[in-house]
């Protein structure tokens, strides 16, 4: 049974941007196709058109020579096109089984049997009767995949599936995808991660600014050639100069504990570490092992024992984030839109949120708008944020630009320590490169960084010392040169 999917001259125009400009592509079952492009290149729009969520302005889609009418998600389902979205389409408070039965016409018992068969076949193990919010990201994705498989799809589209997965979960996913492909399911894999394309796919189509740039066989490509096609310019690879840093301690954490009342949070147990000036300490780990709690304790969102955090010879464990900022600490939280910025507020208003005594953003309780705007303009130009409109609501910035703005906002006061949590999560290569360069620069200016990240490559590239967090406990601190990603992987899984 061969499946042939053809996209012919598809165009989709949004106000102010052409998301898909006359895109034509052809796919055949038995192969895994990559659709590669930076954020905003139009990949997601294209797959949304394929899954009926978005309706194309022009163009046609053929499945096995038959023209498809895709006006709603149910049309795609009827035509055996399955889709796993980047942001899960699950109902968090419903049980796994309820999530699966909701769009199925089968009886409870027969559906349960079918799910059991699928889970056995692909070695998934998920409790069907617990609410989805108790699942890990990897398990949630499996639920989405099962939902597609129930309908025995001809085409399976995966939109940036690994952005929330650990390395272990990613390799499991790849095994499953290869199995699906062998069974004759046509797989379209959307990503901006080059490594994954090289590992998994047979053919790659590159998109840039809504246009299809190239279609080629993976065996004729390598990481650099793909990166250049994707970004449209030559990328320089950056490396950190490993120097002997000063031995002056900047921050010292002793016997830090945090016990949460929320059953969904992780407790932190006896955290001890120190960071010297000019040093970058990387903290690796699978997400959900206490990283966000550690970040909150370090940033002062969660207040701890006064003596447990010593910063620049002051005990600051009981201070809130604002007070810690006055001691020249800076923070870049994980969730850009929820924690770091207020999406509905303008860029300059978001800048004003990081309010220092010395910044004079407010006079006698009134907003000093010209001062803030001047400051914002400086951030935008210094940190390469791609907009000149500081009145723009920050939700309209792309992830990369928003992250640059946030890092810029934090760094413009030249803090002694920057604590960042997954700073390049979900960003494209260009933006990641820029953020990495910036972080390296900070270290070169003899400032320190605590980098909490789930991206092992990033940690190995930027850190001087690395520790692994597992179930709220830190491993011993290792020199980055002595660490390999395999070793980190073992520690992240709880091994020795």
């Amino acid at each position, binding site marked *: 049974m061969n499946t042939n999917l053809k996209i012919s001259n598809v165009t989709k125009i949004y106000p102010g941007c052409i998301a898909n400009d006359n895109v034509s592509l052809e796919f055949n079952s038995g192969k895994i196709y990559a659709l590669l492009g930076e954020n905003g290149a139009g990949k997601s729009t294209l797959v949304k058109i394929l*899954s*009926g*969520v*978005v*309706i194309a302005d022009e163009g046609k889609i053929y499945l096995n020579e038959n023209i498809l009418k895709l006006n*709603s*998600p*149910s049309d795609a*389902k009827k035509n055996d096109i399955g889709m796993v*979205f980047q942001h*899960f*389409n*699950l*109902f*968090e*408070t*419903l049980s796994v089984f*309820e999530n699966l*039965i*909701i*769009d199925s016409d089968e009886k409870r018992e027969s559906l349960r049997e079918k799910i059991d068969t699928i889970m056995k076949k692909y070695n998934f193990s998920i409790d069907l009767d617990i*609410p989805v*919010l108790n699942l890990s990201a990897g398990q949630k994705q499996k639920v989405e995949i099962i939902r597609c498989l129930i309908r025995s799809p001809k085409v399976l589209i995966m939109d940036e599936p690994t952005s929330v997965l650990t390395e272990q979960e990613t390799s499991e996913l790849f095994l499953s995808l290869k199995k699906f492909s062998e069974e004759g399911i046509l797989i379209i894999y959307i990503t901006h991660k080059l490594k994954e394309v090289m590992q998994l796919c047979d053919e790659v189509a590159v998109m840039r600014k809504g246009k299809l740039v190239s279609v080629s066989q993976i065996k004729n490509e390598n990481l650099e050639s793909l990166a250049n096609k994707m970004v449209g310019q030559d990328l320089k690879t950056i490396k950190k100069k490993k120097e002997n840093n000063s031995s002056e301690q900047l921050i010292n954490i002793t016997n830090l504990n945090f016990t949460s009342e*929320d*059953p969904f949070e992780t407790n932190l147990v006896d955290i001890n570490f120190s960071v010297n000036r000019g040093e970058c300490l990387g903290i690796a780990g699978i997400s959900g092992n206490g990283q966000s709690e550690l970040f909150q304790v370090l940033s002062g969102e969660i207040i701890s024992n006064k003596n447990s955090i010593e910063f620049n010879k002051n005990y600051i464990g009981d201070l809130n984030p604002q007070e810690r900022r006055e001691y020249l600490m800076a923070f870049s939280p994980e969730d850009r839109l929820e924690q770091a910025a207020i999406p509905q507020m303008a860029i300059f208003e978001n800048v004003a949120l990081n309010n220092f005594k010395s910044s004079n953003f407010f006079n006698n309780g009134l907003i000093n708008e010209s001062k803030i705007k001047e400051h914002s303009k400086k951030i935008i130009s210094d940190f390469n944020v791609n907009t000149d409109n500081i009145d723009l609501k920050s939700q309209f910035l792309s992830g990369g630009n928003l992250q640059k703005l946030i890092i810029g906002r934090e760094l413009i006061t030249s803090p002694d320590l920057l604590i960042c949590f997954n700073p390049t999560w979900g960003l494209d290569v260009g933006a990641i490169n820029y953020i990495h360069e910036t972080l390296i620069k900070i270290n070169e200016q003899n400032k320190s960084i605590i980098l909490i990240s789930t991206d092992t490559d990033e940690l190995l590239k930027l850190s001087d010392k690395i520790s692994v967090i597992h179930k709220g406990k830190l491993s011993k601190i290792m020199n980055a040169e002595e660490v390999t990603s395999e070793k980190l992987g073992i520690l992240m899984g709880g091994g020795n």
Partner: protein
Amino acid sequence: MIIDVNFVGLIIASIMASAVPLILASCGELITERSGVLNLGVEGMMIIGAISGFALMTVTGSLIIAVFGAMLAGVLISTIFAFLTQTLITNHVATGLALTIFGIGISAMIGKNFVGIPGKEFPVLFEGLKDTIPLLSPILFGHSIVFYFAFALPFITSYFLKKTKVGLIVRAVGDSPESASNQGINVKLVRYACILYGGAMCGLAGAYLSMIYTPQWIENMTGGRGWIALALVVFSTWNPIKILIGAMIFGGLTIIQFHMQAIGVRIPVQFLTALPYLVTIIVLVVISRDSRKIRLSTPSSLGKSFHKDN
């Protein structure tokens, strides 16, 4: 002092009767809120139901037309709310408040001609069994059909939400309208239906007040019961069985504090009047304390407008 068991039975029955409008309105609003829509117009829809029921009964003389007419009136006024919030994407809170103010105003206007007109007797069921079992008879027998329906409703609602496909779809829409829409569920249709159902139940609750509980029309006769019904939904953490408990406590304390005032207990009247509100909320907060359960039963999209863009 000898307490007549049948007298105790009668008091319990009167407590249950006063809980009926709260149960009806709360269970209706619960379905609306489970789909993610916050309709603060409960009070307005109830009072519209009350005047429509009473007016239709007086004009047509038919109780059946009056009861169903009141429900239809609730549906009609909630259609305005549904059109505004779902089609024109207005703010749920502001629209709901406007609905209440509108309902109170228009019911007073229509009601002018019906003040002082006596109501009709509403038929009761199982009247012949009223003296068969001590204590239980007055509780179980001799009530209107609406009464029995109200006490079955929390269980029906619970079954509907937990066990039926449509109930699952309602919960799914309330949890994440975006995901539901991407799954091919027509979010607007589901929300429209839930709003209209809520309107029908509020209309019925109002009709119970003006036709059965105190068969007459008095301006503003719902007297804040709509707001209590709303509070019951939230403090019961969207659990129909807990709504039943809350409504009984509220009804019970309202009746008991009347008796206490009548006996002349030396407690300030204001405190006694406030007692049902305080105790109901405290009890519901205590029985619904589990943060995990709150997270699981709160409709995540409650009060948020959903607009599908292509």
